[in-house]
């Protein structure tokens, strides 16, 4: 019988093969998909996130753990859908129009998924309307935007304005991040939150979801 603590430990070690094997075993042992997810995979990633924030481990450690978690998620996904298990929240994320830098955005998406969120990644060079239309279409409550160029930061304001124009202010919250972006800029354009790095972005999204 596969223990959930064992799964959690394998995630922390970034051992994707072991996570794959243990989640399959847990499913065979008829442990519910939600339990495996919450007490195995997400619990492991939670520990990894805390250790990263405490500077005990480094970014590659987090990303190896994320790969391990995804190996488990691949096994659980059909069951989670079948059992109708809701995610912590749905987030639309992308790098804004005119910008192709997506490493930072990818890291945020990976860590949000690791924390149990449902992430719709629109990629890079995303038009303001696409963020909002996708949020409406999928019932997402958060839009996350990334920019690495000062010249593309104004697009973030356009997205916030587009949310307001569609009458979604308060229902769909916005969070911004990226090297040239600051907390002051976020406030200036009316964004609901600013994440200074991937781990912080996850914390901010959790706050936004709980406020909703």
């Amino acid at each position, binding site marked *: 019988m596969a223990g959930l603590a064992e799964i959690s430990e394998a995630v922390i070690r970034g051992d994707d093969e072991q996570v794959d094997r243990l989640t399959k075993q847990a499913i065979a042992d008829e442990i519910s998909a939600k339990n495996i997810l919450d007490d195995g995979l997400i619990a492991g990633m939670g520990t990894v996130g805390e250790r990263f924030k405490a500077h005990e481990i*480094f970014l590659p450690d987090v990303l190896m753990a994320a790969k391990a978690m995804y190996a488990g998620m691949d096994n659980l996904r059909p069951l989670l859908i079948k059992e109708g298990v809701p995610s912590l929240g749905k987030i639309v994320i992308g790098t804004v129009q005119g910008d192709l830098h997506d490493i930072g955005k990818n*890291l945020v998406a990976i860590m949000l998924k690791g924390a149990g969120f449902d992430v719709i990644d629109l990629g890079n060079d995303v038009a303001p309307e696409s963020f909002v239309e996708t949020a409406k279409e999928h019932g997402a409550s958060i839009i996350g935007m990334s920019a690495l160029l000062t010249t593309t930061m104004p697009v973030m304001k356009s997205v916030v304005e587009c949310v307001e124009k569609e009458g979604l202010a308060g229902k769909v919250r916005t969070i911004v991040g990226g090297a040239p972006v600051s907390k002051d800029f976020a406030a200036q354009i009316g964004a609901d939150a600013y994440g200074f790095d991937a781990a912080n972005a996850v914390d901010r999204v959790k706050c936004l979801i709980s406020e909703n």
Partner: protein
Amino acid sequence: MTGILQFMPAEVLPSRDAVLENQGIAPGTVVTKEIDALCRTAIDVLEATAVPVGVMEEISEDDFRGIYDGEGRNEPRTPVADVYMQADHLALFAVTLGKQPEAEIAKRFQSNDFALASMLDAAASAAADRLAGLAEHRYERNLRERGCVTETTGVLRYSPGYCGWDISGQKRLFAFVHPDRIGLILRDSFLMEPLKSVSGLIIAGLRNIHDRPDTYPFCDRCETHGCRKRFRALTK
């Protein structure tokens, strides 16, 4: 000095410390064997995929003035403005690692190999910076061959988007240098494609003209003060 610059992939390979530093790991930090292996793999992939190339055009002070003014968005005072007018020689340049490293990064992300993708991105960024340094050295060597370098000469590069020289300065820089010759294009947002590319101005003149205090108004917003490190490297 004018034309296309060719480089070997092995020339641009970054050090282990430079790659790890781009991952937020300070030089000298002890890391796990897994992280070390990732770093080695990333550098190997980079060597196999990078096609480093550049373009360079010498430019007069008068011609550069028009390019520097760009779209009129520079800070009122900048190191470049303060330095270039004291220069003996100026050259505009653009360098790129080519498209393939980015394709490799995207491929790794798509296959959930996040740690390697991120490490490869860090390695490519460090390599692009190293490539810009090689272009700078190439120009210095050319000046030396022409008898234009003395013991007091300092050659240093500056890029739009940094230290008050607005990123929009790239538009006129590209119009002068024509990096499309090496497959490098500039988007309307002033984003260079491929992403792992660097453009800028190389200034050669008395070493001390580069010694600018980091007390410009925008220096308060700078987290690295890397200009001081670059100047110190120049004086070694």
